[in-house]
């Protein structure tokens, strides 16, 4: 059948045009790589091989106990013992240590008598991020030490209920965030690809002048549009798969729900975003305009999706606006499928709005496409 031949030729052409264009390849490869790198970096945000300096003016055993625990904790490498506050400062200034701890001469006495016991910690503000993490490690250690001495009430307050946290988790306070973030990334990458690849497709042809060639071929308008919709959806699925695999095998996020249901919902999400992309593409004359349009849509749609702030915290009218945002629904689905085995009816409920949005954007894109032809 001629229609099938034509559509097949179009889809192949479209995929080749993206894959053979160096800029097109950058669009396909750079965003997922950046996201994976950034998040795998975030996942290993543990600071290891920490060097610290200690000035111990205390003669009691509590300070020794604390120091030994620090020395015994895996991330700490070297402990420089110093003998004056000046040396302590020097250790930070010369970057021999990222943190410097000072126990006052009355430290153990205060602990034993149940008074407030103070430890001074100096941090290297030049490495603020690492220093902060080191500080949190130290805090945990001190809190643990303190909790073993019920007399020291002050310290117990400081420790709070966090004392019984599993040992591994001490050193990765971001772990829970990661579980939450990685499934959301599936949505972000699908949104980005669906929008960008589609938005560029017609605009690229307009810019290069091949669009006229397409229009004088026997292809009908709907065939051209279908040919423009299928390839970005295929690419979107590849990226979704890549990120699901990364989530499960790289980030060890549990996958509790049904994968087929996730893919079913993904189809409609891609359908909706590709519809938006197609609309933008039909509206723009150059690739620059198309990319600009894609970002103008993408940023608010991420902000209004619950990805950054919970939707419940938004003003009422914005919450209404967010009903038109496909990302909102998809985010519920991906996170639900990953973290808590979202039931099928809940997935269905969130898929229907995406399908509606998709139909509307596709119709709008078709209308604009015909209209712009004049």
């Amino acid at each position, binding site marked *: 059948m*001629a*229609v099938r*031949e*034509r559509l*097949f*030729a*179009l889809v*192949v*052409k479209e995929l*080749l*045009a993206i894959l*053979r*264009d160096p800029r*097109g390849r950058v669009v396909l490869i750079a965003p997922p790589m950046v996201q994976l790198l950034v998040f795998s970096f975030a996942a290993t945000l543990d600071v290891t091989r920490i060097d610290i300096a200690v000035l111990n003016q205390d003669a009691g055993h509590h300070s020794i106990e604390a120091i030994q625990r620090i020395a015994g904790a895996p991330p700490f490498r070297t402990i420089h013992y110093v003998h004056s506050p000046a040396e302590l400062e020097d250790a930070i200034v010369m970057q021999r240590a990222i943190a410097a701890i000072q126990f006052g001469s009355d430290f153990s006495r205060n602990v034993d008598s149940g008074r407030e016991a103070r430890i001074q910690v100096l941090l290297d503000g030049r490495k603020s991020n690492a220093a902060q993490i080191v500080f949190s490690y130290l805090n945990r250690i001190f809190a643990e030490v303190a909790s073993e001495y019920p007399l020291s009430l002050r310290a117990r307050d400081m420790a709070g209920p966090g004392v019984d946290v599993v040992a591994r988790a001490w050193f990765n306070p971001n772990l829970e965030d990661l579980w939450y973030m990685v499934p959301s990334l599936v949505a972000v990458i699908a949104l980005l690809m669906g929008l960008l690849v589609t938005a560029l497709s017609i605009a690229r042809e307009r810019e*290069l*002048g*091949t669009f*006229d*060639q*397409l*229009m*004088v*071929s*026997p*292809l*009908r308008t709907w065939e051209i549009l279908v040919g423009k919709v299928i390839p970005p959806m295929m690419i979107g699925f590849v990226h979704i798969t890549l990120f699901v695999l990364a989530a499960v095998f790289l980030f060890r996020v549990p996958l509790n729900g049904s994968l087929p249901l996730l893919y079913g919902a993904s189809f409609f999400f891609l359908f909706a975003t590709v519809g938006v992309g197609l609309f933008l593409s039909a509206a723009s004359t150059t690739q620059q305009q198309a990319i600009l349009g894609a970002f103008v849509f993408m940023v608010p749609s991420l902000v209004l999706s619950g990805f950054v702030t919970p939707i419940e915290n938004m003003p009422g009218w914005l919450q209404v606006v967010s009903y038109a945002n496909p990302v909102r629904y998809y985010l519920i689905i991906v996170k639900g499928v990953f973290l808590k085995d979202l039931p099928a009816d809940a997935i269905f409920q969130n898929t229907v709005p995406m399908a509606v949005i998709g139909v509307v954007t596709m119709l709008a894109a078709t209308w604009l496409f015909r209209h712009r*032809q*004049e």
Partner: protein
Amino acid sequence: MDTPSPAVVTVRSLTKRFGPDGPPALDALDAEILPGEITGLVGPDGAGKTTLIRLMTGLMAPTEGHVEVFGNDTRTRAQAVQEAIGYMPQRFGLYEDLSVLENLTLYAELRGLPEQDRPEVFAELLRFTDLARFTARLAGRLSGGMKQKLGLACALLKKPRLLLLDEPGVGVDPISRRELWSMVENLTREGIAVVWSTAYLDEAEACSRVLLLNEGKLLFAGPPGQLTGRTRGRVFRVSGFQGRKRDVLAGLLEDPLVSDGVIQGEALRLVLRQESPPERLQGMVMVPAEPRFEDSFVDLLGGGPGGRSVLAENTREFPKDDPKPAIEARGLTRMFGDFTAAADITFSVPRGEIFGLLGPNGAGKSTTFKMLCGLLKPTRGEGRVAGFDLRRDGANARNRLGYMAQKFSLYGDLSVAQNLDFFAGVYGLDRASRRARTRMMTEIFDLGPYARQSARDLPLGLKQRLALACSVMHEPDVLFLDEPTSGVDPITRREFWTHINGLVERGVSVLVTTHFMDEAEYCDRISLIYRGRSIALGSPDDLKASARSDDLPDPTMEDAFIALIRKSGADGEPKGGTVS
């Protein structure tokens, strides 16, 4: 003969490569530019004209060799070079949203023209370019010719000693082109050296000296007459033959004694390899003709290609006696807002005929063309292709037409083979015939060795072949060609027209737009489009005859064009300078 004045620009064994392994864009060039004359930098697109000009401006450094401008090496003293020259790039950077005067003021600032000198300089330039009446008009609203004049004025703000013009004649109607030329000629009288680059070989003839470039090599340097003289006595205008002109030409081109031949209206223009005519010309009327620059260029390259079109031989025969016209335009009108881009265009093209839409850029020929291939909906009137109404039966009509736009019809990122496959697929060929057709096209156009190369990286001549291959993949009855050979070298152009002539002999009908006067000669009939209207319609010979006068006993197509514009009274463009 030694000139007393030293050369303004000296080029010594100049080579420029883009990328370490790329072919040289300019290959071991030696040349000189002399003051007080127009030096034509002549050659097809991609020959290296722009590269050479940019090397002269010091904007680019040579890979090997030297360029000296007024004794300054462009590599070390680019600043001094740039102060002495005026440069007008192909698309001069006019600010479209600024008025004529604002553009001049801006460039005066940029070039550091002292404030107190400006009124005088502006007045002189505006008088010179005849733009004084339009100082308040936005540059974006100027016609192509006026834009070029304004660009020229901006390049002349600080009177340069060397003026570099990169294809100033492109996109300009013939009248403005002549005006521009005479303006530049006036400048040379003041001793300014002018470099005028062009792909039009007829412009070369008017230059004092030319540098003829082809594929980065300097083929010829010297007065154009010297090159033109090469074919003197071997050029003939041939008429009085039996049979159809295209058929006769194809046969003659296969003769080893014929170096080159083109169609000229109802006659043929032949360049022979020797002065005595070969046998097969006996019985025909041969009139010696004045050689042209192009004749000698082709001769220098070893003569034109043969006359056989394997493509045509492998194309099915279309019935030529079909009474229905292949293309029909009835009262086609197209408005953009209150601007009429095309008004009441009517013509019909019978089967097996080449019909030309001739006119400068922006005249409305592209609008007409686009309405007829279904890219634009007419505001009024109707168009038919192969009997199908474009409005009701668009898809059927499109199935019968092949479309080729020289500049843009291919997917640059796809390989040659992928482009062929795509077009075969899009025209709905089934798998077997798709394979057969693509293989055939690859063979006919000799694309095999390039099959895996990206279309973008092909040399212009091959792109041209590939574009034609893609557009005839489905054996269309009607071919739409938009500026099919502008800027390509004369050999490729002849090869292209050999195929088109062959297809027309098979009954294919062709609609071609061109602003290239020589291309118009291939047409059976031409419609001259100017300011949205068809101001004349007829065969090339008729149109030329209508411009014949005592001053112009043998007018060229361009002369005819100018005369017809004048006659139609549509010549509203302000005249400036004298028309040469």
